[in-house]
């Protein structure tokens, strides 16, 4: 496994692209509170849940365009982990990026995350979701 720490300026790094980017230590993340990270120039919102899994979705709020989602309140709907936009309170599924409230709202892009030896690794490219 190769770990490449990702400085802000690395987005146009040439050469072979590593599929995983080390972003921070798990302990840098507060349980149930988001944190923003720059991943290859993209603003990603990371969320550490109570069971220490980490989820990553786009930091940009699709309703307003502002980069704020990491600052929303983390919670659950049923058993689904969620974040509510701090601007107008729309609720998103942290696992799929889907918008739960309103149900027909736009879907967030998500990134795969792994935690290895206390280091949080985010996949270099977004995994899914609609256009930002």
């Amino acid at each position, binding site marked *: 496994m190769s770990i*490449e*720490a*990702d*400085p*802000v300026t690395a987005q146009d790094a040439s050469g072979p692209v590593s599929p995983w980017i*080390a*972003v*921070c*230590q798990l*302990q*840098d*993340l*507060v*349980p*149930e*509170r988001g*944190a*923003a*990270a*720059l991943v290859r120039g993209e*603003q990603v919102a*990371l969320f550490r*849940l*109570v069971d220490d899994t980490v989820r990553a979705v786009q930091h*940009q709020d699709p309703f*307003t*365009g*502002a*980069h*704020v989602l990491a*600052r*929303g*309140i*983390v*919670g*659950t*709907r*049923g*058993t689904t*982990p*969620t974040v*509510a936009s*701090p*601007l107008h*309170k729309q*609720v998103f599924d942290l696992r799929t990026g889907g918008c739960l409230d309103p149900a027909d709202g736009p879907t967030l892009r998500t990134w795969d995350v792994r935690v290895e030896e206390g*280091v949080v690794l985010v996949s270099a490219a977004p995994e899914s979701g609609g256009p930002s």
Partner: protein
Amino acid sequence: MSEHPTQAESTTTTPDDARRHLVVVGGGMVAQRLVEALRDRDGAGTWRISVFAEEPRPPYDRVALTSYFSGRDAEDLALGDPALWEDPLVTLHRGVAVTGLDREARTVTTSTGRAGADRTIPYDELVLATGSGAFVPPIPGTDLPGVFVYRTVDDVAALRGWVEEQGRRWNRPVRGAVIGGGLLGLEAAGAMQALGAQSTVVQFGTHLMSAQVDLGGGEALRRLINQLGVAVRVSTATTRLRPNRRGTVGGLEFADGGRLDVDVVVVATGITPRDELARTSGLAVGARGGVVVDESCRTADPHVWAVGEVACIGGSCIGLVAPGYAMAEVVADRLLGGQAVFPGADTATKLKLAGVDVASFGDAFAQTPGALELVHSDPVAGVYTKLVLSDDARTLLGGVLVGDASAYATLRPMLGRELSGDPSAYLLPEGVSGLSRGDGDLPDDATVCSCNNVSAGTVRGAVTEHGCTDVASAKVCTRAGTSCGSCLPLVKKLVGAELAKAGLDVSTALCEHFALSRRQLFDAVRITGLRTFSDVLGRHGHDQAPVGSRGCDICKPVVASILSSLDDGHVLDGERATLQDTNDHVMANLQKDGTYSVVPRMPGGEVTPEGLIAVGQVAKDFDLYTKITGGQRVDMFGARLEQLPLIWRRLVDAGFESGHAYGKSLRTVKSCVGSTWCRFGVQDSTSLAVALELRYRGLRAPHKFKLGVSGCARECAEARAKDVGIIATDQGWNVYVGGNGGFTPRHAQLLAEDLDTETLVRTVDRFLMYYIRTGDRLQRTAPWIEEVEGGLGGVREVIMEDSLGIAAELDAAMAAHVDRYEDEWRATLDDPEKLQRFASFVNAPTEPDPSLAYVTERGQRRPATAEERAAGLAVASSPTPADEPMLVAGPTLEVRA
């Protein structure tokens, strides 16, 4: 209309010259309803309407006139939607009386009141809505200065001015008398009491309110009135009003030889219809006055109608507003070609005098042949209740309720119907008899709100068909309870029953994680003493919630607020930090582009020149947009997350502390400059405002709250628009509660008068703590007062008379808050761990958000619009000044090149 040609065309389909002209004489309550009803239904705009109103103001709520003394002012009495008077098809001529009527020519003549010439105005149809005037009996001396009637805003304003002037003149309480012991007289006596005058009611008849209640009820009523401190003389004829040496009214003389010294007199002996125009133009008038009309409210002249108190319908005039409204609806319908007829009058009445519950309805005197009377009288409790029933004791014919009118709202709609259940259930105070009142069985066609003629079915329909889920929305939807409000308890029951039936959630559950309301949760947490969200969720959370439930954006901030009200720990301590909205989390206000605004506290709006310079320098160095807030301080916009600690380091060093502009907590105590500088000020409002702001700073509540302190009655601090407003008087401070601006503006209502500073502070302490304990999530003080037990009166009892025995607890809770206060920002700057949350990116903590973009407007920056970005007009956010210290630590992962 010529001024608004485009508007007129866009709203209607009738060309201007084809419109007919309706002239309404009188601008009172019924005229207002007529115009509203006609404009509502005349979508095609076939009528243009001219209203001539002798009074200098738009129609107002005369029924609520007495509230003018309890802190409401003339504007609060406004009726209906003011936009009605801006309708291009409606012209209101204020201060213009109609002086002549030529039925042949179909014209009216008006006087402008000023020197201007009289005008003649043609009409197609004419409606007389001139109401009544006060009836003054021919007793010598009623023309003396200091003698008033009680009918218009001008009357009550003059009365108030006189009483206040007398109060300043004499070194003793002002002595007042009211001649007339009916509904009006009792209201006037209550008003005099409210102004601080003593009052005596002088009644010619054998008992009070003799038109509505029987002798037994009148006796019970007299005892209640006495308890308010108002003296009563019955069976007393006044023969003369005597002047004092100054030529103003000084005494009353009675037929029995008795005398009474007075400084002010209100004559409330009845009303006479204003039927002058009918008389001079040869229209028939009733035996006791009033314009004679048929059941369609039309006079013998097919083009002249009469509505409201001036109309003599079925042989008499009716001095109540609800029948007048019904007449207005009839005429509106007829003018549009309908066939409506007057349905007959509901003459039920309820006295609106705080502390005295009286109602009378239907055949109160049991005049129906064979009628049975069912009476309950309890002189000790001051209660007298009587039901009048048909000879089989089943059908309700009428009733009198004195001392406890709680059954009124339920009984009145049952008039003429069979009572379900045992009638005695309605005689005893609710809950005492053990018998059920069967409120739920009200038939759909029973009238619930007679002011606005709303049936039980319509109220139910508001829930079942229009999706209303609370009383407030049902009120808006049906207009029930929007006039006198006496039916609101019933509306509440009907709405509640319907919601329950529909299986709709009437529950006050916070969210899927808590089945409790904020208030219940507050009490639960206070008792169990739990102090973390996980514990609170585990113990008090919804038992149906699935394993792994972790709260949400609704319950988490509520729990955070409750915990901080209970022990004032730092908002960013431990797990508690994660519960907060971003505003509370980073102690700043999130703006639309993701940056924040920063507001340092300036208690009472006071700031030194040095302070202003320091704030200005910070704004300049960080390129922040600055604006003065309505709360008398400075707001700085455009601060990025990672800049907040740097900005606050500078502000704290300059002596500032958090302004809590972000919290559901005290915002500001707005003040005027007060007696220290102002030549009108009677108290030092600024010092009080500063003291209060320092006392309540940081106090967390169900919603944000604001205070205001004005140094005199000119009210420059707009204190009555605040949750707690304090206005200086010669003797101390008046305190008002429940005001707010915003979406639903509310004027604060008087809670207590002439308090000394210490009592004032204790009163405000308790008011705020009681609100914090019992308010619902995001409920401001105004709706809280409406919903808390007993309304404003209940609040007064709890905090001024300690009716719940919790005053000491409330005082202790506030003392603890004052004790434990610390500046959240100072504490944060001293704590490296807390500072970590201000990192813009966990892997690049001081890197600005690269998406921010601004343009310059009027010398300051603002967020660029999408168009401006696309057009390349925007610039990136300004860099943080280079010489600022590093407060947020760098990334924990070393960056490998």
